[in-house]
């Protein structure tokens, strides 16, 4: 049996608002196999983004566990979670979250700078830079390497964000409404790119979306309602 690259086991998450405890996730189970594209659907407030953050180790569940390649992540220190996140997961967000002071190339390179000393990075600078250029070329931005986010369109920014996520060769990419801020034509191009990457690189995807068409193209759809998986 294939080990899931990412698994959630009975995930619970609740937030406290004063003395009131508000449950957001109520025992979510999810498995993402290598190379699988999973669409996460649900109404606003269903807990999609919260689940994505828990899967990406950006937040700690109130109950249950998240496993990466079968290994539990429960009880890890913040630093260990950060290292694991860096190695295992890539993120693509609705609002791109590029660093405005950096060019497209520098934004992509930033991923490789994480968890490397200055000397380590300088030692492999040429290869890393070429890798970043190749990725930006693959996402169709070969002519926009030196442009800053403010000089790029929404679609181009999202492509830079995708290239950045790919830079660390993650096992899985968590995409939170990656087309939610784009017009339909641009969104179509971005989705095409995600599917192309999935096919070429075998990277698994968890895509949060409201778009049923996108969900239909994925290998599997998971629906969340009131903090529970309903299908």
């Amino acid at each position: 049996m294939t080990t899931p690259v990412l698994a959630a086991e009975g995930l619970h998450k609740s937030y406290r608002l004063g003395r009131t405890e508000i449950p957001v996730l109520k025992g979510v189970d999810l498995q993402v196999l290598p190379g699988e594209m999973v669409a996460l659907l649900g109404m606003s407030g269903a807990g999609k983004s919260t689940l994505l953050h828990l899967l990406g180790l950006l937040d700690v569940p109130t109950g249950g566990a998240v496993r990466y390649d079968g290994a539990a992540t429960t009880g890890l220190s913040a630093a260990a979670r950060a290292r694991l996140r860096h190695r295992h997961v890539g993120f693509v967000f609705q609002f791109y979250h590029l660093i405005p002071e950096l060019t497209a190339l520098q934004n992509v390179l930033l991923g490789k700078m994480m968890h490397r000393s200055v000397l380590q990075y300088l030692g492999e600078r040429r290869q890393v830079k070429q890798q970043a250029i190749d990725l930006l070329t693959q996402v169709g931005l070969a002519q926009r390497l030196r442009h800053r986010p403010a000089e790029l369109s929404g679609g181009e920014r999202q492509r830079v964000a995708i290239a950045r996520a790919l830079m660390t060769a993650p096992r899985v990419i968590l995409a939170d409404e990656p087309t939610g801020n784009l017009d339909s034509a641009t969104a179509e191009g971005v989705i095409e790119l995600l599917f192309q990457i999935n096919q070429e690189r075998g990277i698994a995807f968890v895509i949060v979306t409201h778009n049923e068409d996108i969900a239909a193209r994925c290998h599997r759809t998971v629906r969340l309602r009131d903090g529970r998986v309903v299908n």
Partner: protein
Amino acid sequence: MYRLFLALRYLLTRPINILGMLGVTLGVWALIVVVSIFSGFIAVVTEHIRSAGADLSLLARDGADSPFERERPAQPLDEHKLRELLEADPDVAGTAPRLVHFGLVHRRGHRPPPPPLLGRSALQGGDVPFLFVLGIDPAREATATGFRSWLQVRDPALAVADPDDPLRRIDDLPTMLLGEERMRAEGLKPGDKVVLTTGRVAAGNVAATAIEPLHVEFAVAGAYRTRHGGFDGNNLLVDLVTLGKLLRPDQAHPVQELSIRLHPGADLTAARNRIAELARQAAGTRPGETGPVVRTWRERNQSLLQSVEHQRALMKIVLIVIMVVAAFLMYATLSMMVAEKTGDIGILTAMGGSAFGIMQVFLSCGVAITLAGVLLGTVTGCLSAIYLEEFRQFVLGLTGVDLFPLKVYNLDRVPHELDPVWIAQVAAMAMLIGALVSALPALRAARHDPLVSLRGA
């Protein structure tokens, strides 16, 4: 690597950082320039004071040089006996007796002006007619102080006619030497007649309670000039024997003070203690009794030197407040940066950045801004201190405004003394303050919830 890279990008792409850096620069600059001017001023004042006195002064008793204590006259020193003892001391190069009195000087026929309020005396003393009258023996004075060089004044028209006998009588009148600036200010020239109005203890009044007025006509022999404007403005020099006869006709050698010059390299404190013991033995002073005392030149001018030192210390405190203001500016700059960069904090965390790493990004920015400010402040501070005189002359030539009126302090140029220890202390203090105030926003950045940034637009 990303910490250094991002810190560098944040620094280079945000012009507001220059404001934080300039705040630190200004604080460091002010601390270096103002304190170096004060230090230079203290060094110059010390040198000036040194030029106007002997190494040691043997006084008839403690407080004998105070106008208040003078109401209770000290037993005059046995100058001959002391001279013999002192000249046997290996450290003593010369001694000179002095009689110290006070009086008002005015032109003949003019009413003497009222004495000034107690404690009021300009640094140069040029605005008060109240003077200390020092009775000196010119030949002996030259062996104990720089008296010969004092006679070399700037204006040859005010110089004494015969430096070898500067207090020679003129028109059968006793003569006096006045400070050059005072002579110029009062329009006096050698040969002018003036009246010294003073008082003396009435003959036979042992308790010294009855003072009788004394008006004596003098001729001005010429001017003297030490480098200590305060001394020149407040003292006139007359012949010791002449003054002694005027004040104490019943005493052959009334001496209140003995100026002592030591050989170069002599230990001032050790010599002071040894000579004080000698003098007390010579006077037959028993333990617990008031007797002759010896003071070093520094002790005699302690109040002036301490006053300037105190002003320097006060100025340091004021300037450190500027550093505190600069620190607030740094804090504001870094806080703004953190507030603007909360979005970046979210994505950096998502990419695998740790809270500690994010703190380092912002702390590095703060430390780099502080370091740049400290370096710029130190370099400009040192250059400003060194070239302040040239700058003063430039401004004076351009606008006519004198930023630092040298004449008031009897200076040739704006003084400065760069103390490497102080500069290092300022730089270290600025770095410490910069790091501390940077740490607060950096910690806030590290504790920022990345999910808040990632959820927002």
